[in-house]
């Protein structure tokens, strides 16, 4: 599985998000991406990429696209 596939799968697993609509997805765009869903998403990504995200990054993770940018800090290229 590529990093992109892992990244997208995390959104589907944690948020039950429609994979066809991920590219423009933002925090709270869908009911599932609330504060609890957000933490589930972070945990999925940490498991998928074997990383531990810092609190500031968890808070800044405001969209699908922003997440790609943040993961670069952890040497994960999507």
């Amino acid at each position: 599985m590529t990093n992109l596939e892992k990244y997208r799968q995390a959104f589907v697993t944690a948020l039950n998000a429609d994979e066809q609509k991920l590219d423009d997805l933002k925090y709270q765009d869908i009911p599932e991406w609330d504060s609890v869903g957000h933490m589930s998403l972070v945990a999925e990504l940490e498991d998928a990429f074997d990383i531990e995200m810092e609190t500031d990054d968890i808070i800044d993770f405001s969209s699908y696209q922003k997440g790609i940018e943040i993961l670069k800090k952890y040497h994960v290229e999507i």
Partner: protein
Amino acid sequence: MTDNAPIRLDREGIYQVLKNRDPLLFVDDVLVEPGKGSWMERTIPADAWFFACHFPGDPMMPGVLQLETLFQTSALAIKLLDGYKDKTTNIAQITGARFSGHIRPGDTISVSTQIHRFRHGVAAISGEIHVGETLCCAADFVLAVLDDMPGMKRGME
């Protein structure tokens, strides 16, 4: 309290960590493995308040109270972690629930819950209630500790 050793809690011990009280307290004498899971056997009193109204002449424990039993039992496995005793667990999500057997007055239920992941204040949990060999209730759900979610917009508050 440690993260590893199983702990047995009687009603007095439960009062120290859970805010629930009768008639909405459904746990007693629970074996807890902090951060991992919890187990309980409990006989449902024949005169429990809900049997008279659910249903007259055909008493059975309501499904919603079976779920609450799972929530309370599993919450103990979080609240016995170091630093969590005074934090509140909220039910945040039920991802699946199945009911396949009735719980009748005087039945002894066996409750087991397992915490699959607890990170950033979000616990993914599954639980089951059996009467004898019969599976009565199985559920997958999420408990959230809002105190562990600093900086997030807290829609649940």
